């Protein structure tokens, strides 16, 4: 049995999803020879640390009752530097301006020779090359499937499952909030503002929805795909972005009458990275509704491969983190 000692940095919805999935999958992991021992759980107020393994059920209930998991006043970077473990699961909130705590956590993890699995787009959008080089220098594994499309496999699909194929382009819906808003505007013939309000009530849109509706979130995901799959060295500034705030119910209706839906489509190839609302034929594989994500990977040998799935949600995102964990340690 291989024991993997890890920390969970960031204990919001995604971090808690990871804890739930690790509890749920304990027996399965053991059946493939893996014991995952979480030695520290950190949120913005502090941490719970136990080198023998923290009790994840306790952490979850403490977070839900008192709003924090903190028992000690210690930060993520301090946990990385002082507690012996090999894997950092980084699920702090995305910050695309500075990289936030996530960037510091990842760099500290690599500098101390730890592996990193993350769902945090910010650091990858800003400092992809630096992170990859730091990881390489220390021989660390660095995986981030959860940053693009939640449970939907895109990065690992292109780089591993379709290995040997040259990827020509990737097009898709990479933001569930925008997809939900556009789908509901058409269904209800309702304005953008009305459906945005509904999405906020349902928790589908954030209180500040700017990242989502202005296409910034989609652009960040394209940057990650451009760097990780196409081997480019680009940042958010290299993406041409138009969001969905101007889309009207009348435009959606007129398009629908002529056989189209309007979707916020992200598109990446070696030549261009672009986010904009596009007309998608109703029977096209990318015309998925609700909060679903979808990506079509156009490849040299295999042609076009399309995957669709839930792009957000704690357990769904944790599923991508779990698959990264098994990819690193499963065959050791």
């Amino acid at each position: 049995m291989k024991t993997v000692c890890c920390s969970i940095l960031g204990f919001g919805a995604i971090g808690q999803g990871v804890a739930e999935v690790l509890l749920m999958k304990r027996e399965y992991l053991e059946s493939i020879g893996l014991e995952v021992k979480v030695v520290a759980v950190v949120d913005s107020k502090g941490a719970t640390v136990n080198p023998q393994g923290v009790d994840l059920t306790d952490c979850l209930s403490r977070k839900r009752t008192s709003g924090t998991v903190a028992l000690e006043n210690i930060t993520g970077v301090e946990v990385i530097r002082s507690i012996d473990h090999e894997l950092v699961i980084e699920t702090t909130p995305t910050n695309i301006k500075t990289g936030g705590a996530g960037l510091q956590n990842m760099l500290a993890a690599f500098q101390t020779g730890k592996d990193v699995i993350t769902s945090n787009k910010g650091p990858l959008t800003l400092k992809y090359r630096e992170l990859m080089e730091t990881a390489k220098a220390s021989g660390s594994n660095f995986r981030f499937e959860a940053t693009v499309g939640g449970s939907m496999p895109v990065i690992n699909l292109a780089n591993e499952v379709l290995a040997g194929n040259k990827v020509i382009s990737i097009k898709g819906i990479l933001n569930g909030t925008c997809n939900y808003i556009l789908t509901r505007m058409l269904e209800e013939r309702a304005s953008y503002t009305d459906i945005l309000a509904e999405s906020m009530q349902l928790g589908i849109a954030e209180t500040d929805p700017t990242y989502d509706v202005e296409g910034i979130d989609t652009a960040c995901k394209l940057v990650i795909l451009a760097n990780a799959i196409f081997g480019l060295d680009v940042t958010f500034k290299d993406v041409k972005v138009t969001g969905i705030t101007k889309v009207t119910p009348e435009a959606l209706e007129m398009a629908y009458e002529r056989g189209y839906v309007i979707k916020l489509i992200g598109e990446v190839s070696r030549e261009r990275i672009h986010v904009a609302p596009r007309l998608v034929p109703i029977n096209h594989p990318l015309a998925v509704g609700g909060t679903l994500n979808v990506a079509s990977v156009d490849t040299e040998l295999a042609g076009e491969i399309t995957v669709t799935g839930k792009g957000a949600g704690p357990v769904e995102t944790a599923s991508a983190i779990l698959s990264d964990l098994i990819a690193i340690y499963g065959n050791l």
Partner: protein
Amino acid sequence: MRISMDIELKDVPGQMLLALQPLSECKANLITVLHHHQKRTPRKTVPVQLILETRPESIEIIKAKLEENGIRVVRVGEHRFRESLNVVLIGHVVHTGIQDTIDEIDKTGFAEVVDLSLSMPGINLLSSAFIRIDAVCKEDLQKALNILKEVSAKKDLLMVLPIDIQA
């Protein structure tokens, strides 16, 4: 009717005038002249494509007059649009002059706005238009699209293009 006419001019001065005179005499409305300066036919002549509007009975007369002027008429055909593009425009589509937007495309001669639906929900609200543009060939459709992009940027209109078109 609108027709396209492929002619060949000798590579000497004054040929274009000889080509245009018969059109003027027959009161044909010349829409586009595509003068392929860089190309040469095996006969060392310069190929030129004309798109014009005229009465059907004038076509043979124009052709005869051109040949009298020493200009070879290679092909005359009804001008058919083979490529089309659907596009949605959102913004102050009407107040910024929808007619002017259409004219910019129509006056090219190689592309036309052939379908337009418009929705104006209220005076201070954004309008939406669904338009279809037809063009002679893919290159012309791309040129028409570039014109529409420029007009949309100038008028602050959101242009929603089909997924298979390079935006």
